């Protein structure tokens, strides 16, 4: 039983981690927590679904097409909404992303309605049994995709020039500008890439949560939890946080109470923040006087 719970937890956890990657990317470069990340992912998933069902395109074609749209969409959101508040107080930025969250959700409801629909899985549905533990090929796929994306971005940040630029702009906008980095174009591209990550997350999550405007509600919140737990600036932290939350939640549901599992997760977050305000793998923030 415990083995299967852990596998189930890891599977759920990799969904959270996947959804958290985009959040972290934006926070890392532009110091903004995007509360609309989940809803952006949901919109892109709907677009992908439209390609699939209305224009009857094959799965991977509609997948790729919707990611292209995601990139443009993400950049547009940054240009139109986020750029004007780049220097505004944190609260204004938070509220703005909440406004976007509401609008995206409302618009999706108006366009596509609220009746949940099924979404096809990336790979044919197959599962393996091993010493009484069952795992599906799609669960493995999601885990692998998440890890690859995380590693890819991790290396990208560490070793490429653009990655360095993105990191630099997160450290200090003024200095980055002095170094000749086009901070604003870095931000715009970051949002584009984050939207792509969101799109991937949405499309892979939709078969599990089913597709409707509220689909990212729970996963989105757990993604925040994962990001916070991991430190919010650390890409590997997202995976650690996500998996930790997935397993923790599974164990609580299995052995304590399935109704209180979220409460325990929230308590865990508050506890972690209290003990180590920057999360498990977060960078230390020193107060400047």
């Amino acid at each position, binding site marked *: 039983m415990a083995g299967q719970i852990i596998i189930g937890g890891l599977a759920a956890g990799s969904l959270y981690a996947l959804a958290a990657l985009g959040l972290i990317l934006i926070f890392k470069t532009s110091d903004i927590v995007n509360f609309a990340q989940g809803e952006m992912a949901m919109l892109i998933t709907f677009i992908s679904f439209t390609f699939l069902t209305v224009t009857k395109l094959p799965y991977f074609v509609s997948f790729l097409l919707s990611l292209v749209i995601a990139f443009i969409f993400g950049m547009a959101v940054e240009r139109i909404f986020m750029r004007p508040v780049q220097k505004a107080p944190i609260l204004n930025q938070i509220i703005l992303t909440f406004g976007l969250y509401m609008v995206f959700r409302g618009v999706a409801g108006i366009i596509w309605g609220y009746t*949940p629909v099924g979404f096809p899985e990336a790979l044919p549905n197959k599962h393996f049994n091993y010493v009484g533990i069952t795992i599906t090929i799609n669960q493995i796929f999601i885990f692998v995709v998440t890890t690859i994306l995380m590693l890819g971005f991790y290396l990208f940040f560490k070793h490429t020039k653009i990655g360095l630029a993105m990191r630099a702009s997160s450290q200090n906008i003024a200095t980055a500008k002095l170094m000749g980095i086009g901070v604003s174009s870095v931000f715009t591209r970051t949002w584009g890439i984050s939207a792509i990550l969101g799109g991937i997350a949405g499309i892979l999550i939709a078969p599990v949560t089913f597709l409707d405007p*509220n689909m990212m509600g729970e996963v989105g919140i757990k993604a925040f939890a994962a990001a916070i737990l991991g430190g919010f600036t650390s890409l590997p932290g997202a995976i650690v946080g996500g998996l930790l939350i997935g397993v923790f939640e*599974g164990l609580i549901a299995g052995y304590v109470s399935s109704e209180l599992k979220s409460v325990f997760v929230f308590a865990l977050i508050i506890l972690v923040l209290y003990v180590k305000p920057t999360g498990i793998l977060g960078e230390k923030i020193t107060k400047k006087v």
Partner: protein
Amino acid sequence: MRKWLVNSLIMIICLVLAACGGTNSSTTSTKNAKEKSSVKNSQGVTDDEILIGGWVPQSGPAAQWGILAEVYQSYFNKVNADGGVNGRKLKYIAIDDEYQPSKTVAAAKKLVEQEKVFAILGTTGTAHNKAVKPYLTQKGIPVVAVASGDSAFVKPAVKNYFALQTNYDIEARIFSTYANKELKAKSVGIFYQNDDYGIVYRDAAVEELNKLGIKVAAQESYNPTDVDFSAQALSMKKASPDVVFLFASPKPAASFLKEFDKIGGSAERMLTYTSADSTMIDLAGADVMEGVLSTTWVKSLKDKDNPLIKEYVDQISKDIPKQDPNSVFMRSAWAYAQVLVEGLKRSGDNLTWENFIKQMETLKDWDGSLAYNVTYTSDYRYGQTSVKISQFKGGELVDISDVIKYEP
């Protein structure tokens, strides 16, 4: 000094404007209503119109039920196209309460006092309906087909309340009886939603199963927003009951069944009627759904020659082409509206609340709607307790029994 006067004036005007719209309409319509009731009819009735209202969540966590309002409107369109009810056209007002009880209270007051509707139709949410029940009872406005199977609206019977959909408590008992008699179950596992809806089911099932001497092997619950059900599926499999009762809304039920199937759980599965429709095939897949049992209280679309079915399918495909008419929500909503309109028809030109309620009580095993055997008396307000057992077979939900009438 002058500046703030101007500012304050603007603010006042804003406030007053909002209030005034209501003042005018409220005073005038109070007069109208008084005139009419002294003449004959209750509020919301004019010579060529009957006003019907209700609240339905059209945004927020339960927005999927917003479709009900569209179905009511669709049915009224059909009735109006056929000449209305005794020459009066039906007008329907839906209010979005966002599934928030405090807004439901506002909606109820608005419908009764501002919009002055004649009757309230098919309103959602157990907690939400409960929140306004004292108010609506005190007003005495007919409330037809509360879209909740909670016993609070039928037990004890309330003069102005008419339920219709199968009572949750009763369905749980039907499940238990069926598991006992037909499936020869020794043990049952229950998967339920941890809210007013799921818990009612669970309590009734546990009570009935104990009475029948069947072991309740597992009780697994979840919160309505949950997405991961692997732990529950696992515990259920471990308890290995003969039958699993699913008292869950479509998304969680589908996820759970998928998960249960994946880890190799095997049991007869019985799914509450509120979720049992074609959506489940879409969400969980036909393979997973194969063999799942349920009950239906609205007629199946299989019987295409039935004129009741034909008019439903025709009208819905015209008004709401995007949706699959097979949806249980939509068929239920159609039935709600049918029962209301039947009551109106029987009331003839005497459209008072008093008479409407009297006429509703003349419905006896009425089979003119999508529901079976609708009946109301002064102390029986269930509407119907007649269901057919149905089963998912080859990607379709088909009825496998005759009408079973349960006596509460």
